[in-house]
């Protein structure tokens, strides 16, 4: 069979993958550098009978996809920093009400309007902590088109598996980069379908009663079971409650269902990590430069390795700790002031051996930038 090879932007890959995953509903508001996703959706979705909505802002965009998810449809929105900031309250609602959906944030330089057309990776912490209150979140990223495809599909899969919003953190550099991608054949990447309740009509269905495996079967709005959805603490019926036992049980459930499955959710790539004595840890566009350097240095016999993270949240603590323990020192490569660095230091047994190679000037970090910092750390001068 002919392979389906395309030469497209990262943002377009995200669209292809979302449709592959079964996306039926998209709502968004234009913002650089994510706009191509909305534009493509406007063209593609109606052709398959899906719905594209251009809403009045990013708040309503996330609200609309949350509503659409409750009627049983896979739903997504895409934005960038300022829009992601606006979404934070509605994100918390989707967490609390356990409504699957996917939010793409094609990161640009921040804060505020910042650098609309330049790459940044400054929203890693916002993805984790942006909405108020204790909670857990899943956030994924990718550095190349094949992986953007994979991680977009994974985002939908995790959203359904854990009944939660999932954030896909892309960046301007990969979003706008054109490169080759082979679109997988249908069925090549497994898809997680909406888990629907088997409780028959007329018998009580509890929308917020987890099964033994922790999953919560859903029932579509419009089907027989009628239930209440709320952002207040609620009981198994979805009815508001401030009973301390119920409150405690729900917050534990919301956090544990994700944190206790961090091994299942962890996605990463190891490049020459096994025998490395110096380790780079990176993700997204930065990981492209890190990989370039690793391969270049390997060809000269230097034992450099790269741990490329694709799951950023829940942070893959054990994987990072183990990788750091086996090397002389570790350098985290990213385009912010050390958001993942902070997590790596927390994970590592010897935080004093974790260093940062970053750029925060809107320019893509280059292999030479990383190389220069490595030389400084190694006492070789610049």
């Amino acid at each position, binding site marked *: 069979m002919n392979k389906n090879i395309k030469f497209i932007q990262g943002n377009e890959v995200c669209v292809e993958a979302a449709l592959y995953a079964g996306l039926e509903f998209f709502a968004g508001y234009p913002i650089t550098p994510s706009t191509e996703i909305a534009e493509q959706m406007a063209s593609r979705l109606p052709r398959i009978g899906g719905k594209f909505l251009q809403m009045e802002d990013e708040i309503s965009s996330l609200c609309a996809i949350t509503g659409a998810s*409750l*009627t049983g449809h896979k739903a997504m929105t895409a934005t960038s920093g300022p829009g992601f900031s606006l979404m934070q309250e509605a994100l918390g609602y989707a967490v609390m009400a356990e409504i699957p959906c996917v939010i793409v944030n094609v990161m640009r330089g921040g804060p505020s309007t910042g650098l609309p057309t330049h790459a940044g990776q400054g929203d890693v912490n916002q993805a984790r902590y942006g909405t108020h209150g204790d909670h857990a979140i899943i956030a994924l990223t990718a550095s190349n088109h094949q992986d953007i495809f994979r991680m977009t599909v994974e985002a939908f899969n995790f959203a359904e598996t854990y009944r939660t919003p999932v954030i896909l953190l892309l960046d301007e550099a990969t979003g706008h980069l054109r490169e080759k991608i082979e679109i997988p054949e249908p069925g090549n990447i497994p898809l997680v379908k909406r888990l629907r309740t088997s409780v028959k009509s007329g018998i009580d269905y509890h929308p917020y009663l987890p099964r033994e495996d922790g999953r919560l079967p859903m029932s579509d709005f419009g089907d027989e079971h009628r*239930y209440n959805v709320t952002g207040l603490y609620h009981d198994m019926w979805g009815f508001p409650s401030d009973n301390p036992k119920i409150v405690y049980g729900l917050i534990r459930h919301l956090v544990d269902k994700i944190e206790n499955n961090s091994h299942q959710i962890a996605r990463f790539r190891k490049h020459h990590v096994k025998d490395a004595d110096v380790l780079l840890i990176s993700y997204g566009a930065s990981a492209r430069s890190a990989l370039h350097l690793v391969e270049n240095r390997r060809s000269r016999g230097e034992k450099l390795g790269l741990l490329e993270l694709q799951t950023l949240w829940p942070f893959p603590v054990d994987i990072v700790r183990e990788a750091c323990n086996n090397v002389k020192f570790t350098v985290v490569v990213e385009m912010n002031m050390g958001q993942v660095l902070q997590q790596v230091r927390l994970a590592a047994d010897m935080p004093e051996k974790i260093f940062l190679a970053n750029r925060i000037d809107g320019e893509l970090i280059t292999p030479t930038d990383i190389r220069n910092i490595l030389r400084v750390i190694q006492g070789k001068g610049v």
Partner: protein
Amino acid sequence: MAVKDYIRQRFFPHMWCAGCGHGIILNALLRAVDNLGLNKKNIVMVSGIGCSARISGYVDFHSMHTIHGRALAYATGVKMSKPELNVIVPMGDGDALAIGGNHFIHAARRNIEMTAIVMNNRIYGMTGGQFSPLSGYGSMGTTAPYGNIDHNFDVVDLSVAAGATFVARTTTYHVHELSDLIEQAIVHKGFSVLEVLSQCPTHFGRRNKVGDAVDMLKVYKKRTVRIGSEKKQTDPDLIERGVFVKKDLPEYCREYDQLILKARQNR
């Protein structure tokens, strides 16, 4: 069916104060739904946050109690993804027109088929009596201790200007009219707005010295008239009740169906 068949008895007693107008609206709404013979599984009620928004917990429909001001945005997602559902969106005046004002005008502009009920008690009840964009000049609230200098929106004018294709107003005193107008609003194929003047004796009544719930209802009786009433000519401050706008214009979900056909032909 009896009205009680439309409520979730498990979730009672309700949280509203004695004399609150919101319960009257709930009652009228259930009568309207019963009269129309709607199937409960085809109704979704989406609300925001406020005393008014709690109404969605008490009805035995699919219900979504969301975040402050955004009910119409959630409802838009529900309706667009399953247009066969009847979507009812009750909102407080702050919910609908302060924090949610932008969603309100855009939902009206799209003419998406849903029923927006503005439960207008002219105050923020849930947070304890602050003024709202519908309180009006000179009214008192905890955040307007010297009298409000903010002017109010007129819900009817605003809705008409924004493009709502059914716009009506009534009060909690006029209960038969209320349930009749809710029926009409639900049946209307487009975005319908029903403003219901609803008393909050606890905060508006007390702070503005209007008296208790009964006194407030008497004000609705005395100070409102049917649209076109001659009394209005001699007493222009009277508030009109009835249907202000009812027109047939292309509805958003049906427009989208046409768009899908077009997109498929262009493939």
